[in-house]
């Protein structure tokens, strides 16, 4: 049918029916509706992306705002001189530490007056703010008799509630009077802060120290568990990298096309999706129940995490082996290399940046993994110190960063929550460094064929 066969009589306009707008400039209802739905759909999509980003921002804010206080601690700094006579007098008293405490309070009073403040306080209030000070002072002077007569500065840790007050965890409104801290003590604290006696310093102990007991949140540090994680990562690196690379080379270059190879491949892709807790059960049953390896040891943790990261490393290594063009292999074979030589001398070095990137990402995953560590006993153990040597570092019980964070989160004291957030910051700094390293490696060495 062509235009000419259309008779004018059959055209709707001629029949006198209402004419639809033919103008391209005016939108009809349907188009408007379709455009509106188009716009809506696009907004949904944008909304979804924004929701994701919003969650990320909320998470980051929560971590940073609640974790930063873990890196500071509040100290009471008092400088005073103890003479030989005062020392002798104090040593004669029945309650020796009490006598030292009196010196401390006197010195505190003096320093307060010096800076023009006057707040009445008693020994009990001071004890609530800095704890019992006499013992520390006595020990100091007993250990260094030479310090007698010369001015000595004491940096004493403030109690955890004063610490909370200075970093905003405890406020005047939320504080209830108790034997730990009373509302009136906060006036003293304010005055001491103004006089520069109470101050906030960076908490090195949190980064280098070991875990403390349940009753001492202020002294808890993540250092020992960083070491535990480090030994675990050593095990993971030195087992999963060679095994992963060897397995990938076999599957990518040598494996015949048969059922058994298929089975291995299906196995690997399934292992990558097995819940991590199942690897924990495996570790418990095989390494601890069956082989009687020591519980809570970084060696066992490392073995479990190795099995867990192997699939990740194999998958990424195979991808980077596959990315090396066949011409490289052909050229090597062409000049007389054996197949093994062509792979180990040419293909593997070219694939190495990709393999290392995948390994670092796998290690980062393993570093943050918690669930399997709970089952092999890394949680019940309180890591109180560093391992003595290199070998004992592998077999002596220790904690690991995520397990330490979990331990703190499981304790009822709020002050430990702050430590847990702080621990997360440390953990994320490690993860971020590793990921950035991986990105740099990829950018720097990746070759496009």
């Amino acid at each position, binding site marked *: 049918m062509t235009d000419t066969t259309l008779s004018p009589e059959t055209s709707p306009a001629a029949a006198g029916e209402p004419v639809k707008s033919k103008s391209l400039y005016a939108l009809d209802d349907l188009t408007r509706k*379709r455009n509106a*739905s*188009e716009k809506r*759909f*696009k907004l949904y*999509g*944008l909304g*979804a*992306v924004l*929701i*994701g*980003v919003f*969650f*990320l921002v909320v*998470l980051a804010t929560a971590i940073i705002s*609640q974790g930063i206080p873990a890196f500071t601690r509040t100290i009471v700094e008092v400088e005073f001189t103890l003479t030989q006579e005062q020392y002798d007098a104090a040593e004669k008293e029945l309650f020796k530490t009490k006598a030292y405490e009196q010196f401390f309070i006197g010195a505190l009073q003096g320093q307060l007056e010096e800076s023009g403040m006057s707040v009445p306080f008693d020994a009990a209030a001071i004890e609530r703010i800095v704890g019992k000070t006499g013992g520390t002072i006595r020990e100091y002077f007993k250990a260094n008799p030479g310090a007698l007569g010369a001015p000595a500065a004491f940096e004493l840790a403030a109690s955890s509630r004063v610490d909370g007050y200075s970093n905003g965890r405890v406020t005047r409104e939320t504080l209830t009077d108790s034997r730990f801290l009373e509302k009136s003590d906060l006036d003293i604290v304010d005055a001491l802060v103004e006089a520069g006696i109470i101050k906030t310093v960076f908490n090195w102990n949190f980064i280098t120290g070991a875990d403390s007991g349940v009753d001492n949140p202020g002294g808890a540090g993540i250092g020992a568990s960083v070491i535990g994680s480090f030994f675990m990562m050593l095990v993971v690196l030195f087992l999963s990298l060679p095994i992963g690379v*060897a397995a990938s*080379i*076999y*599957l990518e270059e*040598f494996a015949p096309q048969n059922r058994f190879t298929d*089975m*291995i491949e299906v*196995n690997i892709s*399934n*292992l990558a*999706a*097995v*819940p*991590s*807790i*199942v*690897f924990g*059960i*495996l570790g418990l049953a095989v390494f601890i*129940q*069956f*082989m009687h390896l020591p519980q809570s040891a970084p060696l066992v943790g490392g073995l479990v995490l190795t099995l867990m990261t*192997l*699939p990740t490393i*194999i998958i990424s290594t195979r991808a980077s082996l596959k990315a090396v063009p066949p011409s490289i292999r052909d050229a090597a074979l062409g000049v007389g290399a*054996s*197949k*093994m030589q062509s792979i180990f001398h040419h293909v593997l070095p070219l694939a190495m940046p990709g393999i290392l990137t995948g390994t670092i990402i796998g290690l980062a995953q393993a570093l*943050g*993994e*918690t*669930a399997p560590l*709970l*089952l092999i*006993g890394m949680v*019940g153990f309180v890591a109180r110190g560093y391992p003595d040597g290199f070998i004992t570092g592998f077999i002596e019980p220790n904690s690991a960063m*995520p397990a330490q*964070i*979990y331990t703190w*989160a499981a304790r009822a004291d709020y002050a430990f*929550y702050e430590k847990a957030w702080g621990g*997360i910051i440390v*953990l994320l700094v490690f*993860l971020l460094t590793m990921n950035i390293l991986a990105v740099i490696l990829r950018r720097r060495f990746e070759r496009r064929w």
Partner: protein
Amino acid sequence: MSLFWLVVIVLAIALVGYVVGRARALASAGGDMRDLHSLPSYYGANVAMKAAVPAFLILVLWLLVQPFVIHSNISDMIPEGTIGEGSSLGLVMAEVRRTAEGLENAVAAGQISDDFARNARSDFTDITTRLKEAGQIVTSQITQPIMRAAQSYRIMLSTGNFYMSIVVLLAAIAGALWGIRETKADFRARNTVERGIQVILFSAALIAVLTTLGIVLSLVFNTVEFFRLYPAMDFFFGLTWSPSFSGRGGSSELGILPLLWGTFYISFVALAVAVPVGLFAAVYLSEYASSRVRAVAKPMLEILAGIPTIVYGLFALLTVGPMLLSVFGEDGLGIMKAGTAVMTAGLVMGIMLIPFVSSLSDDIINAVPQAMRDGSYGLGATKSETVKQVILPAALPGIVGAILLAASRAIGETMIVVLGAGAAARLSLNPFEAMTTVTAKIVSQLTGDADFASPVALVAFALGMTLFVVTLGLNIVALYIVRKYREQYD
């Protein structure tokens, strides 16, 4: 000889073998490398390989088999009658091992003499006190059979280790000598070494299979053990979960249904959050976003996937829980009692899964051929109509696969539910109530000093088995769908 030194010595023998083999090959060709079949280093490597590989193989096998032999020998020594009421052979054996370790440590620390540890028959009554004095933890009064068993355990272990060192060293030396004897100018060293390397590569690939085998075996054995102590029907169809740790778990009710309900409920909430958000984000990023927006937004979403789950757990416990509580708790709607609830865990898990769903869907949407889009646009469809009527139907199987993978992730997730979902096992419809999951209960049953002979600890393996089967099933189906779908458009 400690294991460490044994390994070092074997490695040293291999190294010496390498040097000797290389030199001998060169010498046999009169110092002219061109007369050799292979490069000289291959002759060295051949010797080193023959020294180290069989020795290490023997070492590993010995370490695996020795505990069995000792165990069966020792358990014959323990008379039936001495196994007390409510105890088992396993518990007695653990006691024996502990005592033997105590003896060993005490000897090492010099508190008791080796001779005393070997033949303390006459005065074994005070051995408990002497071990305790030596700082060794001994649980109860050591009875005569346990002491005897511990003594022979200790002796067998040390003789076993002694013979192991000898056999391993002999194997290493014999291997090295064999390799050296073979070394002649026309020996095909490269072919031998390469065949050896190929075997090593193959065994590395086998580790993946062994891991699966290990998982399955450790789950199956302990699960069977559990079902011997606790009826399977009650486990699979029981409606209450109340383990009792007293009386060796005799009065526990260990029904899995409340746990499964909690698991699926939380996973459902998580998917209800993650699937719409993830899917829309994927559609937006792949169809609408400019390349600059994409370059920023995609990595940001993927950061969410790289954050360890312990962080999400803490986030649920300390941020989301209290936040929900302030809205739905007693100050607000009054339907939430505590911060830990299905909603808390589900919401946070949903956030965790957003990037998982979005990046998988993104791949799948990008795999839909451009021709299909162009065809749709050519017919005058808008972008959203194209997405809804052409791309999504075409990508549907793949997206279903992605959702199944996300579901399997949600079911197997541990830290978020341990910290965010509460500990009470209940069957309830209220999403603001605390419930618990299979994974959380595995953790709580196995953390601490569980003895592996009681049903309350063994049940964790049955739970693990259930979890493994469910997630494996989901994964297999999902991977099958995804793979099949990918091939369709390749």
